[in-house]
C-alpha cells in the first residue's frame, strides 16, 4: 500500500518547481505541518509566508501577493479554507482572478473523529458555485503531481482538495493526464462509476467485485469536478444502463449534482448519487465512516447490484 500522501506530493512538486521559479509562494495558517509544507518552508523560507490561525487573512493576503506577480499556493484545512474564508475566496480569488491555488488539506471526513467542525463536506458545492473558480479532487499521488505541475503553468484560480491519509495508487508514473479531462479507467455497459478524490480507489475496488460476478462496470476518475468533463459523462451515459457517482461530500451541490444535471439535460439516464448523508456524521476513522455510509467497495457494489437487479426485473416485467 502506498504510504505517500497527496499533500506530501503537492509539497514535493512545489519544492521541485521552486528550484527555478522564485515567484512560487506557499502561504499557511499555522498549517505547514498538517499540510506537509514544512519541507518547502525550510527549503525556501523567502518564498513561504506564515499567517497564523487566520484563514480569512490567509486567502486575502494570498490574493495580494498574487496581484503582484506571485504564484500562490495557500494551504489550510479544507473545512476552514472553504467555508470560513468563503467570502475571501469569492471576492479576492475568484472575482479578482488572482493566481491563487487554494489547497484544502484533510478534506471531506479526513478528520473523522474530530467532528463536524473539522469536516469539509460542503466545499465542492461552495467552491464550484463561484464563477471563475476551478475545483479539483485528484485521486492518487501520480495524478496529484500532474495536476500541480499543470496548475503552475497557468495563472487562474483553483481549489484543490486532498485527503489526510495516503491514498491507494490508481495509476503509475505512466499516467496519461490531461487538464480538465477525466481519466477513463475502465469502460462498461451495465454501470459506470464516476468518482473523485479518495472515492476513486473505492470505485476501482467495487468494479473488481462486480466484474467477478459478470457485470460490465466502467470507472471514470472525474478529478476535474469543475470544469467537469461533460463529454466523458455523456459517453458513459450513452453506453451504460446506470451511472453511479461517488463522492466524499454532502448530497447537495457536489459531483453527483453536477453529473445528474448534465445527464438529465443531454442524455437522460438513471443516476444514483452515493455521498455522505445530509446530517451530522458519525464519528470514526474514514474507513469506518465510509463503510457505515456504504461508500466502501462492498457498499458501492451492493448499491449497483441492487439497482441493476431492480432495473432488470422492471425490464422483464415490461416485456411480459
Amino acid at each position, binding site marked *: 500500500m502506498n504510504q505517500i500522501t497527496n499533500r506530501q506530493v503537492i509539497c514535493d512538486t512545489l519544492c521541485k518547481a521552486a528550484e527555478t521559479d522564485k515567484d512560487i*509562494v506557499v502561504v499557511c495558517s499555522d498549517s505547514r505541518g498538517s499540510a506537509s509544507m514544512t519541507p518547502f518552508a525550510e527549503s525556501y523560507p*523567502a*518564498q513561504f*509566508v506564515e*499567517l*497564523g490561525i*487566520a484563514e*480569512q*487573512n490567509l486567502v*486575502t*493576503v*494570498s*490574493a*495580494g*501577493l*498574487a*496581484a*503582484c*506577480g*506571485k504564484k500562490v499556493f495557500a494551504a489550510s484545512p479544507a473545512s476552514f479554507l472553504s467555508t470560513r474564508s468563503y*467570502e*475571501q475566496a469569492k*471576492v*479576492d480569488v475568484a*472575482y*479578482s482572478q*488572482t493566481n491563487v491555488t487554494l489547497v484544502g488539506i484533510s478534506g471531506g471526513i479526513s478528520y473523522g473523529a474530530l467532528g463536524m467542525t473539522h469536516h469539509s463536506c460542503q466545499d465542492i458545492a461552495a467552491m464550484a458555485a463561484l464563477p471563475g473558480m476551478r475545483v479539483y479532487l485528484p485521486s492518487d499521488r501520480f495524478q496529484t503531481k500532474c495536476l500541480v505541475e499543470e496548475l503552475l503553468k497557468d495563472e487562474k484560480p483553483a481549489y484543490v482538495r486532498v485527503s489526510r491519509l495516503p491514498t491507494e495508487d490508481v495509476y503509475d508514473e505512466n499516467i496519461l493526464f490531461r487538464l480538465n479531462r477525466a481519466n477513463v479507467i475502465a469502460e462498461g455497459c451495465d454501470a459506470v462509476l464516476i468518482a473523485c478524490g479518495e472515492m476513486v480507489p473505492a470505485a476501482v475496488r467495487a468494479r473488481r467485485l462486480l466484474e467477478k460476478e459478470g457485470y460490465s462496470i466502467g470507472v471514470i476518475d472525474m478529478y476535474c469536478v469543475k470544469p467537469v468533463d461533460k463529454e466523458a459523462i455523456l459517453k458513459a451515459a450513452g453506453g451504460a444502463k446506470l451511472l453511479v457517482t461517488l463522492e466524499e461530500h454532502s448530497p447537495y451541490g457536489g459531483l453527483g449534482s453536477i453529473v445528474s444535471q448534465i445527464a438529465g439535460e443531454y442524455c437522460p439516464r438513471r443516476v444514483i448519487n452515493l455521498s455522505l448523508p445530509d446530517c451530522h456524521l458519525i464519528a470514526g476513522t474514514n474507513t469506518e465512516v465510509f463503510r457505515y455510509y456504504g461508500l466502501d467497495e462492498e457498499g458501492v457494489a451492493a448499491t449497483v447490484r441492487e439497482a441493476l437487479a431492480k432495473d432488470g426485473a422492471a425490464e422483464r416485467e415490461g416485456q411480459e
Partner: protein
Amino acid sequence: MDALTKKAYELRRDIIEEVYRSKAGHVGGDLSVIDIMTTLYFGVMNVGPDNWTDENRDRFLLSKGHCVDALYIVLGEKGFFDKQEAIDTFSAFGSKYIGHPNTEVPGIEINSGSLGHGLALGVGMALAAKMDHRSYRTYVVLGDGEMAEGSNYEGMMAAGHYKLDNLCATVDVNGLQISGTTAQVMNSADLGRKFEEFGWNVIEVSDGNDCGQLAAAYEKAAACKGMPSAVIAHTVKGKGVSFMEHQAGWHHGVITEEQYRRAAKEIEEVLR
C-alpha cells in the same frame, strides 16, 4: 487654501455631478475621503497612466469601496480615462463604472468593496514588494465604520508581525455610518491605540480634509522604518456641502435638482 485642498474642491464638483446624474453612489463618504485621495494621487504616490504597468508603481487600494464614485473622479482627473465618461455612465446599465472598484476600470489594482478586505490585500502586496526588493509603497484607505469587520485585525496583526514599513493605511474617520454614528452603532473609537497595539506607527491628523496636514502625515509615514504606518484622518462626512455635513442620512442619499444646484453653488463659492 493650499493647491491640493483646492483641487479636492474642484473634484467635489465632479462628484456632486456624478452622484446627482446617476442617483446612486455614496456621496457623504466621497466628500470625506476626497482630500485623502487627492493628497495621495496628486501629492504622494508614484502612480499614473504613464507608469501603470511598471512593477514599481505605488499601489492604492480603496477598502471602503463604496466610495468608488470619488475614486473614479480622481482616476479620471489623473488621466486614466475620460472623467466625463465616468460621470455620464456611473452605475448605468452595462457600465464598467459600477458601484465598487473593479479592474475593468483603468487604474484600479484589484476588485474590492466587500468591507474588511483591503488591509489584508495590502499586506500581500507589501510582502511581495519585500520579497522582490522593490521600493513601491502600498496605500490602503479604510472607513471607520468598516473597522468593525474582524478581518481588519487579522491584516493589522500580520502587517505588524512582518514590520511592513512599505504599507500605509489611512482610516477616514468621519464618525458616521449608514445607521448613525460609529459611536452608537459599534464604537471603534481610539483607533490609533488599536493600531499601536498591533505594532503600527500611528499618525493622527486632526483635520483630514486638509491636504496639507495629510501630506505631512504621509511624509512621516514614509520616513518611518521597521513598522507599518496608520494615518488616522479625522474628517467630516459630507464635507464641503453644508446640508450634507455630519449627516448620516447622506451616506448614500439621492440628490434632488434643487440640492444639486445648492451644493454646486457652495463649492463654487469656496473655489472663488
